[in-house]
């Protein structure tokens, strides 16, 4: 166990906890109406879309096509089917890509 490594892990841990606790400084009852409420309501979709967008739109056509297939499946099917469709189509299209 080296002291430098422990210090680095502690710094990582504290930095992460700081971001996880940041929401606590928003007062309770804040953003119950108007534009602010709309902003908070949009947060899950905004964060999730930002997480996946670079992979889906800027990696390559197999990822984009697999995401499209996943999206279509997601419209009607339960999540487990969505995951299976996503993994299977990504694996298949990636395997196919170098042959084209």
């Amino acid at each position, binding site marked *: *166990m*080296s002291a*430098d490594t422990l*210090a*680095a*892990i502690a*710094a*990582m*841990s504290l*930095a*992460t906890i700081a*971001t*996880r*606790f*940041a*929401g*606590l400084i928003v007062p309770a009852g804040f*953003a119950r109406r*108007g*534009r602010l*409420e*709309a*902003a*908070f*309501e*949009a*947060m*899950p*979709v*905004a*964060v*999730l*879309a*930002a*997480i*996946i*967008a*670079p*992979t*889906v*739109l*800027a990696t390559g056509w197999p*990822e984009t096509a*697999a995401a499209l297939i*996943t*999206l279509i499946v*997601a*419209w009607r099917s*339960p*999540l*487990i089917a*969505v*995951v299976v*469709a*996503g*993994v299977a*189509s*990504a*694996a298949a299209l*990636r395997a196919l890509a170098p042959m084209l």
Partner: protein
Amino acid sequence: MEIARRPRVTFVQAWPRSIAHMGAVQSTRASAGPLMPDRPTGKSPHEPTAFADFRDGVVATLPAMAAATPFAFLLGALATDKGLSTLETGLMSALVFAGSAQFIVLDTWQSPAPWLLVGLVTFVVNFRHVFMSASVLRHMGSFSPGARCAALLFLADENWAFAEARAARGRLTVAYYAGLSGFFYLNWVVSTVAGAYVGRLIRDPRAWGFDFAFIAIFIGLIVGFRSRPGFVVTVTASAGTATLVHLIQPGPLSIALGAAAGVLAAAIAAGPAGARR
């Protein structure tokens, strides 16, 4: 060595967008319906028991757990390659519990580790938690202050996303959140430690499409929110901005700026009166 080299760009690219999970399969499905009750509406006559809620949470997170395991193995192998002991590897997963940050830091690991730089990088990579915690706290009205803090300590993309999906269709309880987080956390820590021993067996989880499990989970969850006002505007602004930023400067900045753009666009589109349906 080969493992550390080959997928280098790969983990960093696959990971940050990978870590989220979803709530129970059923609940996510249900959230595709009318998303109404965003606020706790008090007890219904069919209030589920705490155990049922906990179990639903565990079931919801199973696919995310399965998808995270190969990455945890790989992370353990990477940490070993970089000279971390098994104990240090386990400690990092237990205390940080944030896959994208762990991959990025270990990928550029130097010995002796520069703690300040490592802390700053982690803060930037994990900045999205600021949005996530602010948002999920609105649904933790039934949590005690202690439970709220404990819940935030375990906040990761996956359990957060499932918690939001659950809250969108009903009530988020402590038991459900604990079900989402407990085994997912343990699995992450145990699998990284296991990876320190057997991670070399895993080559590239991307080749098998494992990274896409997270993408698919997130797509499914996003679609579940589709009846929210401003949905299209939010997705377009967020995804467009994130992609643009990624093309200019690949890295965690794309998530923070994309999310901010999506939230801003939703606020503008709502108008001063808000978007109450």
